[in-house]
């Protein structure tokens, strides 16, 4: 187990490096415009552009530039460790903003994830147990609605109702938890719900399908033949095998969301990572693009590791190697 985790951590480092190389190459291969133009003033002359290129280090060869990026990443730079440089777009240091924005995205994901598991798993289980009844059909109908409803539409609609019409909520934007926990919560509750409804609907459908598969397993027939009550059969024999794959899926979905809540962040006017990546990509902002990509790659890779360890803890047939 220990060796497995160490090996996977090394693998994670390798993945992150690979992703950074690819991102770096894509940035230069795509004809996206010269970042130096921004730094060369309103009437750029050839000399000014060359000057800007030299300042940004863009005059060096690609391997040399990547090497410098790596060197700063590992040894740190004037803004701290890990060295991520400054934004080509805003000219602010990347690291402090990365931390701020990670807090925003983290807040959205953690609350949303807790909510979607709390809704999705019970709905799936109830649907499976009440299969083909009005409950099942009703719940699955609602799920189908939320699976198909576009997030931006749902987000705007919820803002219209709960903010503009009912005035229950203070509006968009993000308030730091340290500043005011109440405001933090009030601003996040809608993004949480919008994110959670989509995923809860997906998870409910998966949990229902898993439960229905498990119910027809031979070992469930054995459980009844032992004289167990239906309640005990569900709680002790059906839930565990039905939910084991969901745990793994949950961890990977969390990782993917680190850079994937772009729509939610944009509609609710929250300065998170996904939003930032979009701005960076639109402005040829290499350092920000690199920073966010690395964080997302590391998050996906680490949470996949967590998923594997959790799955092995739940299912004795799974061997970590």
């Amino acid at each position, binding site marked *: 187990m220990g060796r497995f985790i160490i090996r996977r951590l090394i693998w994670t480092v390798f993945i992150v490096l690979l992703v950074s190389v690819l991102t770096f190459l894509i940035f230069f291969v795509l004809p996206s415009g010269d970042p130096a133009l921004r730094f060369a003033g309103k009437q750029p002359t050839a000399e000014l552009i060359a000057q800007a290129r030299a300042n940004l280090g863009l005059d060096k060869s690609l391997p040399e530039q990547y090497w410098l990026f790596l060197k700063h990443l590992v040894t740190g730079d004037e803004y701290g460790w890990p060295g991520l440089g400054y934004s080509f777009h805003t000219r602010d240091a990347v690291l402090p903003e990365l931390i701020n924005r990670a807090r925003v995205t983290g807040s959205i994901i953690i609350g949303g994830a807790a909510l979607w598991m709390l809704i999705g798993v019970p709905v799936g289980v109830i649907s499976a147990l009440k299969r083909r009844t009005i409950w099942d059909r009703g719940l699955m109908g609602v799920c189908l609605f939320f699976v198909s409803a576009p997030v931006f539409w749902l987000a705007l609609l919820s803002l219209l109702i709960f903010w503009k019409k009912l005035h229950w909520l203070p509006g968009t934007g993000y308030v730091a938890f340290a500043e005011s926990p109440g405001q933090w919560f009030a601003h996040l509750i809608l993004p949480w719900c919008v994110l959670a409804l989509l995923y809860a609907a997906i998870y409910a459908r998966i949990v229902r399908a898993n439960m229905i598969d498990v119910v027809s*397993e*031979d*070992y469930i*027939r*054995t*459980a*009844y*033949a*032992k*004289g*167990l*009550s239906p309640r*005990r059969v569900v709680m*002790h*024999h059906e839930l*565990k*095998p039905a939910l*084991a794959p969901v745990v793994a899926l949950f961890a990977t979905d969390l990782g993917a969301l680190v850079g994937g809540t772009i729509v939610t962040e944009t509609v609710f006017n929250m300065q998170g990572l996904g939003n930032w990546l979009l701005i960076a990509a639109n402005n040829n902002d290499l350092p920000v693009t690199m920073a966010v990509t690395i964080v997302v790659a590391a998050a996906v890779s680490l949470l996949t590791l967590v998923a594997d360890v959790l799955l092995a803890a*739940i*299912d*004795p*047939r799974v061997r970590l190697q």
Partner: protein
Amino acid sequence: MSTDSAPLLEVTDLRVHFPTADGVVKAVDGSTFTVRRGETLGVVGESGSGKSITFLTVMGLINRQSARISGSVRFEGREILDASADEMRGIRGARIGMIFQDPMTSLHPMHKVGDQIAEVVRTHTDKSKSEAHRMAVEALREVGIPSPETRARQYPHEFSGGMRQRAMIAMALVMKPSLLIADEPTTALDVTIQAQILELIDELKDQFNIGVVLVSHSLATIADVSENVMVMYAGRPAELGSRDEVFSDAQHPYTWGLLESVPRPDIRVERLVPIDGAPPSLITLPPGCAFGPRCPHARTECTAEVPELRDRGAGHADACILATEEKGRLRAARMKALGVTT
């Protein structure tokens, strides 16, 4: 073994019909038999002959909403076909143990074997966790599992196929029930392991003086360990009697077909003969004798009405309308045609 002659399990005219969109599936349609303590009833029939449904019904494991069940099932002297769900839970696992075809899939893959057995004890008694665990280990020892303390802490995937079926038997017998129902317990096992499991069931039957039902699709499997044999066809018993009677003096042409289609060490035959055709649809049974369309000796009388199970003496009954003497002639002719030398 047992001196009391009252049957442990007495099933009379059991019918289990499933209404479906295509029609009523008559999975069991008039099953009658008894099982006594210290005796094994071997139940033989093709897939879809109603063997498994019969005993799942006895266990109360057929969903009453989806099936129409009639007849009588008396167990330990009382009628259990109309017993409440709670009463049946008290019987299942405690008074009747059941094991299934595939021990690979019948044990819960995520629970320790010892815990799965102890769960039966905890469900039916107030015994403590440690006492239940001790009984689980003891049950594993009784079915011949080496180092049962260690094995109890392992998961099913760490067991071989034969060991898993032993663990299933331990689970079925941990509460010392009076009846063990084994639904094709050796079908999924290696041939060498099959004999071991059958022997084990036979030994435990004597040791605990329990009644055993051994369901199989093969006569050869049950031949050695059954006192009585029931041959089922299309949801009904075709023939029922002591093992020796059924094997040496089979009365039903379907039983003849079964006997002639498998090799036997005691009789030399020149060739094995399969039974022509396939089992009938349980929705639209042929008129009269359900085996009629596949029976080489069928005549017009056979289609008149569904033949009753009739006692031919010595507890040997069959559901074929032909006269005993005529069947003797027919059987002799069949044996001759096969080149049988006894």
